[in-house]
């Protein structure tokens, strides 16, 4: 698939999402990226069909006395792209953060 390579920040967000982290602040914490990177990345992932979003059940939010949250999860397409992307970023290993960017079945460099 001839697709434009995802920027590393977006790959990081996708990776965190694949490990089950689902909403904005959580993803900020997991990736250590700034909010100005993470939120546009989420929009892009959703537009490319690599992630999907849903709004939290209003009742749940109400019980916890907070506004409802937007949750993201990785799609099957997203997983494929992620694996591909991580192969590619493997070559950039010295520039990446250890233990975060490698898929579980890859050997750390």
């Amino acid at each position: 698939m001839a697709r434009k390579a995802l920027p590393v920040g977006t790959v990081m967000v996708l990776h965190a999402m694949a490990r089950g982290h689902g909403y904005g602040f959580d993803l900020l914490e997991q990736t250590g990226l700034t909010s100005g990177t993470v939120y546009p990345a989420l929009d892009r992932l959703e537009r490319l069909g690599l992630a999907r979003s849903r709004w939290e059940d209003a009742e749940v939010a109400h019980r916890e006395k907070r506004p409802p949250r937007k949750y993201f999860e990785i799609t099957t397409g997203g997983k494929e792209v992620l694996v591909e992307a991580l192969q590619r970023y493997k070559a950039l290993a010295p520039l990446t953060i250890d233990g975060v960017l490698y898929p579980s079945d890859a050997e750390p460099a």
Partner: protein
Amino acid sequence: MTRPRPFVGAVLRWSARLVPRYRRTEWRRQWEAEIAYLDRHADGARTLRVAMGAIRHAWATRVEEMTMRGWSAGVRTTMRGVLRRPGFSALAVATLAVGIGTATAIFSLGEAMVLRAVPYPDGERLVGMFSANARTGFSSFAVSYPDFEDVVLESGLFDAGSFYLEVDQDIAGGAEPQRVRVARVHREYFQTLRARFTLGRAFGDDDHEAASEPTVVIDERLWRSRFGADSTLLGQSIRVDGFPHTVVGVLEAGQGWPSRATVWTPLQWGSSVPEYAAERSNHTWQVIGRLREGPSVGEASGQVREMARAIYAGEDIDERDIGTEAFLLSLRTSAGGESATPIFLTLGVAVTLVLLIACMNAGGLLLTRALGRARELSLRAALGAGRVRLVGTLMAETMVLALLGGTAGVGLGHVALRSALAAAPPEVAAAADVQLNPTVLGAALAVSLVAALGAGLLPALRATRGALAESLKDGSGGAGTGRGTMRVRQFLVTSEIAFSVALLVVAGMTVRGFQRQLSSDPGFAADPIASFTLKLPAARFESAATIDGFLDRAVEELQRSPLIEDVATISRLPLGGAGASLFRSFVEDGMPEPPDGVEYGALWIEVDPGTFRTLGASPIEGRDVTRDDGPDSPPVAVVNERMARRMAPDGTLVGRRIRSFYDENVNRTVVGVVPDLQFNGVSRAQRQPIVFVPREQAARREMAFLVRAVDAPDQLLPEIRRIMTGLDGDIALSDLQTLRDSHAADLAGIRFFTSLFGAFGVLALILAVSGVYGLVSYSVSLRTREVGLRMAIGATATDVRVGVLRESAGVALLGLGVGTGLAWAGGRVIAAGLDGIALMQATTFVGVLTVLGLAVLAATWVPAGRATRVDPMTALRSE
């Protein structure tokens, strides 16, 4: 429910504006949820940091929006908008095109004529050096040799420098003798300019040695016309002023600039400078120099001024040199000539005003248009178009119009320039291989783009400001009648009127001034008179006796012809014709010389006993010059009326003695007063004081002849040539033509500028009147609804008209008043700069104010009348 802190809330609110409208609600919900979470789990600094990310997020959504569907859709919407109202679009484009086109064409023409490009490498480092003396009132004159040495050769400011002196001399060899302008140049002249040669070489040091055989460089055009582009001319000898000179070089065409010479000879001073030339007080030389890298021309000029001050504050300075200074001008500026500069400046002002008015017209149109679209915009906003997007659309349309206008303007400018050049007199057309100047074109385009965008942005913002529901609900009232938009419109109308007044007055003044010069009376009958000049070669005419002998013989021979009624010599032809212009300062005998006494400047002209008779003038007081005023009789002078009034305002100057104390220093008895004849060219129509002296008391080798025909002067020219050739075939006759023709040639430039300004004035008038009419009539038509309401409740048509008129009158009077002030101030500046050319006349003001006043009246009356005729119910429903 947790609320974000105020600052964070503001960041979110403002950022949200960037988000496309259809995504905005969701975007805010998402962020509010995040902030709410942060408020609980993170400290304030972290919350703020995360919240700042919202700005980037919002921006990203906007960019995404634009890239996803923005461009193609935007272009489609824009083109639809432009084409939907073809009349409006064409008008806006035409207005801008006219403004840009004419502004560029006229500016290019003026620039080419005044600020011609320097044809040498690194030309911007080339300067001319000049002297000035505020005490004596001479603001620019030539430089003395010691000044040249001190300033150019020894100050370290210059890489190279030289000087020259121009004289008119005959050349012979090849064809019949020909009078040419010869520049006698000092060492390094061509090297300073870095001039290019078609053949041969520049002068070397040897050429300037007094002992060496004289050499000469000629211009390529002379080489082609006179010597048939003969490449063996190098090394051959031609005669210059009677002496043989060996041709060593042919200078490439155009490389003689700024000198007007076609022949160059080396000044031969040998190892020492001749005494007369070495004097500090001998301000004779035209100095050029090439500045060293570093200081700007202005900075260098400042240093030169200081140097000159120090020099002229020293000992041994001639009394009349006290206060002499020196300064530099870039050759580019100084060689353009003084006379063209004020005309050019006036053109610049007028062009700027036209551009301004064109921009305001376009702005007015756009404003009108945008306000008229308030309803459409509201609808689109209601359907989800964001404000940024709406404004963007309007701006895009404006941009397209401005670009179209600019493109059309370039074409129009080209056509305008071509037709102006076609109508131009040869010296103007030849002056320049004129092209549209890219810098000026760029500037005009930029100005009109900015103006159009500015004019588009304001109404776009206004029309889209929260108008949503009201505008839809209200139907019409909102469009352009709100207090704010009314103020903008009134401001626009006022300034449009004001600028129009200023422009039209400037144009009118200039045209009237030119017209007056065209019709000016020279003070004598020029029609049956022919004239020519000659210069007797120094080699054969050394003494005053030989010179006068030849001139007397020529007069006698000519007089004998049956075609000729009268003949006389004069050192300078009237009406700005050829000949030497000597300007000398006089004091009355017995009065102190400056600085204690008063000096009177006057033109110095040598005449024959028959000169005034030939011109058809006679003394109004005292007597004419006679045969008895010979070289050995007492020195006498005849003055013109102006000089007599200057020096003797109450009594008579006849019988009193005057002395040109700087130069001749001989007391001359004034024996007569003649009327003011026009000796200057039309570009300096003011008549100067003149002192006429008998030719035989001040012999000169360069003289002009006036020949009055018995009948038609046209048959006269071959007759004159025949007689003079018979007398001495080696003396060239120059400028052989009728005075009427030389006068016409002199007038050609003025005539050209008159028609240029005239065309310009007509254009300005159309632009101004149409702009004023458009804006005012639109303002009035917006009130159709109000008029309908008034009529419905019983107002008569006249009541309404008068009411509307009163309001327009207020705005118009303000505009006319401000404009009159502007025009008056500008007019004074221009009248001062264009000494004798521009005329401040009440009639011009009255005319301009009347025309514009009528335009406003019509622009109010017509639409107001139309509004009163509309059925009130229709008017009430109208938009």
